């Protein structure tokens, strides 16, 4: 009985064992159909990577001069009429500064200082005029005044030099250097008796006779003194008068002249007393302020005329000089400069009272009126304008570029690596699908964070673009790398980018109990270059490349694991 049961159990058990063995063999036979199928690629040892770069650029003005307006002190902006990236026509009000912080105290102080400035300016003007008079020349800039030039003396009218009192190298002894006379007309004094006086009046024509000259010469009474004076014998009283007459020749003062009244050009009566030539009619003294204003020793360094020489008005007659004169000029200049300094300091005091409002990094046509309204005469492109109302000292209020429509460029910032690989001619356009136009690199500026590159922009190639419009620039670079694989064969850590890491699954044939099987081996790699479809990778240093051609899994999915058996498609 027991043996039967044992037999039955053993039969069942043997049947079970047979079933297990058969089942195991079935699994073994179908293993090829249960192993995951993967496609593979061979790592290219010298593959090409074509990298296409798309960069965003902005149409900007070719005028590189950027004007930056900064607050010179803490201030408020009451109104801003422009905004960043705006093109502003010339003369438009840009913004208004709040000037209400100028207090009445400050204004009073400013008035006081202004009064002082006014007074000092008057003094300064007086000093300059005095110096001008002394030096006998106009002073436009005190710094250009040369003390060694001395004093030049000029003829004040046309005429002849008379009584020249200076000679070269000699000390000037009189303030009247010379007289300039007009010897064509003579002034003749005459006397009239009490009987003659009623018959003679001012304006009356008389006939004159000169000693040594024959005939009568015309004369005209120009003045009569109605107050009689006693004669030298004090017997009777006489009246004095003056006659103006043409000089018949070389008549000079002191010459005796016979005076007769006339009627119809004929002598009517001859006056009792003869007259005397007192002077020439026009006599201008040439004086010098130098002599009259001081006790300086003035010397005639140059005399350009001689006695009796006919001169024209404005003609230089002489030059005066001497150590005293130079010292006097130097002292005057010093005084003037001191005065100018005083005025300058007073003006600074006003500036310090308020401080400067705005500072500029370069010259500009920027203007601010008393109300704080700021304008500019040029058409500008606003690169930046402060939006907040309160500004600290040194903060930028406005940064702009003078708009120049004729020289628009494309500008963009790129990193150093892109710049080094970028060709000088690239495609550009307004969208990625329409980039048939090329543009050339025309300028590069290096900055700490990269490069600002400028490309030319011509309206005829890509019309319709205006300042600050966006454009896309495109270029591609082909390079060869050691290990190039499709992008689909890498599992990146993060995004696929140069320098980042990732994993690839290398397929290696391993000898196993089941025979040669394809086994995955997970390898960490570093991405060296990224193309549009391929990437260049670098294996870890400890990776031993057993074969020349490394086969890796393509179209990786997440089910792959290190050490997994796979079947190659």
């Amino acid at each position, binding site marked *: 009985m027991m043996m039967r049961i044992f037999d039955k159990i*053993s039969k069942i058990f*043997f049947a*079970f*064992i047979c079933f*297990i*063995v058969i*089942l*195991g*063999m079935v*699994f*073994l036979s179908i*293993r090829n159909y249960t192993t995951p199928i993967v496609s593979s690629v061979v790592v290219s040892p010298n593959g090409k990577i074509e990298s296409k770069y798309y960069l965003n650029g902005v149409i900007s003005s070719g005028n590189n001069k950027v004007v930056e307006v900064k607050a010179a002190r803490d201030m408020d902006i009451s109104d801003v009429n422009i905004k960043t990236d705006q093109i502003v026509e010339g003369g438009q009000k840009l913004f208004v500064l709040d000037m209400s912080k100028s207090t009445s105290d400050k204004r009073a102080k400013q008035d006081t200082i202004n009064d002082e400035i006014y007074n000092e300016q008057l003094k300064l003007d007086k000093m300059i005029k005095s110096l001008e008079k002394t030096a006998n020349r106009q002073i436009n800039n005190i710094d250009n005044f040369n003390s060694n030039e001395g004093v030049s003396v000029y003829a004040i009218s046309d005429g002849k030099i008379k009584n020249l009192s200076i000679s070269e190298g000699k000390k000037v002894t009189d303030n009247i250097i010379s007289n300039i006379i007009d010897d064509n007309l003579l002034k003749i004094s005459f006397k009239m008796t009490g009987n003659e006086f009623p018959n003679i009046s001012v304006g009356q024509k008389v006939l004159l006779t000169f000693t040594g000259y024959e005939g009568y010469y015309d004369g005209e009474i120009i003045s009569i003194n109605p107050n009689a004076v006693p004669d030298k014998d004090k017997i009777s009283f006489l009246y004095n008068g003056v006659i103006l007459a043409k000089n018949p020749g070389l008549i000079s003062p002191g010459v005796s002249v016979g005076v007769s009244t006339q009627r119809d050009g004929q002598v009517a009566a001859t006056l009792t007393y003869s007259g005397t030539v007192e002077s020439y009619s026009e006599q201008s003294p040439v004086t010098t302020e130098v002599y009259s204003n001081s006790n300086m020793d003035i010397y005639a360094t140059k005399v350009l005329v001689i006695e009796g020489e006919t001169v024209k008005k404005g003609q230089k007659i002489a030059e005066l000089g001497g150590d005293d004169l130079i010292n006097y000029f130097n002292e005057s200049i010093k005084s003037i400069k001191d005065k100018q300094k005083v005025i300058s300091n007073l003006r600074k005091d006003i500036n310090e009272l308020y401080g400067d409002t705005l500072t500029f990094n370069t010259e500009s046509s920027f203007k601010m009126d008393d109300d704080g309204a700021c304008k500019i005469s040029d058409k500008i492109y606003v690169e930046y304008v402060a939006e907040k109302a309160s500004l600290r000292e040194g903060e930028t209020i406005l940064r702009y570029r003078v708009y120049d429509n004729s020289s628009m460029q494309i500008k963009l910032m790129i990193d150093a690596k892109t710049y080094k690989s970028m060709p000088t001619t690239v495609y550009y356009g307004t969208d990625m699908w329409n980039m048939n136009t090329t543009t050339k690199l025309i300028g590069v500026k290096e900055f700490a964070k990269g490069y600002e590159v400028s490309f030319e922009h011509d309206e005829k190639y890509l019309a319709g673009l205006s300042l600050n419009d966006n454009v896309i620039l495109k270029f591609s670079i082909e390079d060869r790398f050691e290990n190039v694989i499709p992008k689909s064969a890498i599992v990146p850590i993060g995004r696929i980018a140069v320098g980042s890491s990732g994993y690839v699954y290398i397929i290696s044939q391993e*000898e*196993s*109990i*089941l*025979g040669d099987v394809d086994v995955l081996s997970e390898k960490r790699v570093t991405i060296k270059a990224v193309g549009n479809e391929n990437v260049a990778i670098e294996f870890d240093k400890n990776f031993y490349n057993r074969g020349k051609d490394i086969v890796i899994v393509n179209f990786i999915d997440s089910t792959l694991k290190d050490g997994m058996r796979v079947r190659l498609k």
Partner: protein
Amino acid sequence: MKKSLIKILSVIIVVLFLLPIVYTLLHSFMDAYQVKSYTASFLPKVFSLHQYLKITQKMEFFKLYINSIVISVSTIIGQLIISVGAAYFFSRTKSKIANAIFTIYVFLMILPLQITLISNVFLYNGIQRYIGITIFDTKFAVILPGVFSTMGVFFLKQFFSSMPENLYEIARIDGASNFQILTKIVLPYSKNSIFALCALNFIESWNIIEQALIFINTPSKYPVSLYLNTLYANDRDVFYAGSILFIFPVIYLVMKSKEKIKNMIVENRRIV
């Protein structure tokens, strides 16, 4: 008293022989947790077929299982062909040369396995060097020594010699050739012995260890007998089921052929 002592001794021996098998059998029904635990236990806490189900996915095991089958079956077939022919020759030839050769056969049979291994290595090297046929690292390296094993020749020669001489004479009178005598008379007559020989050969080649270790380097060509150690080290949770699967053909064969083997041994013993 003496019979009782023998019986007791037999029981002890049987128990000692069966104990590892029973131990393995019982462990094969343990779950993975109990198998891997270090606490010694003989009986499974939970009867589980987990090991058997899991080992079906252990394809390496069945790959080598097939190797063992191929090696064993090839060895048996080869040895049958060689042994039957040689045994018939030695049983029917009465010359001195034949006797001398048979003596050598018997001498070789008693040589230890290690001695023949070395000569086999030399032989395989020679064949590879002079003929260009590579036997190393192939299944032939373990099949061929089994095929040319002297044990089969010895046992069959003894059996064929014990056959009644009349059978041979009648066949010759009927005009039968040696081949016809062998195939029509000798083999049918000695099928039990041949079966027993096959069973013994199978057991020997199934459990082969040393030859495979020396002659085969590629793991995929190993017999499953070499894999059990790996299975114990790496996959202990299926090791006992694997062991049962490994010993199952042997046990089955023994149980099926125990009578035939016993008869052959008795017959040989009687002849000898």
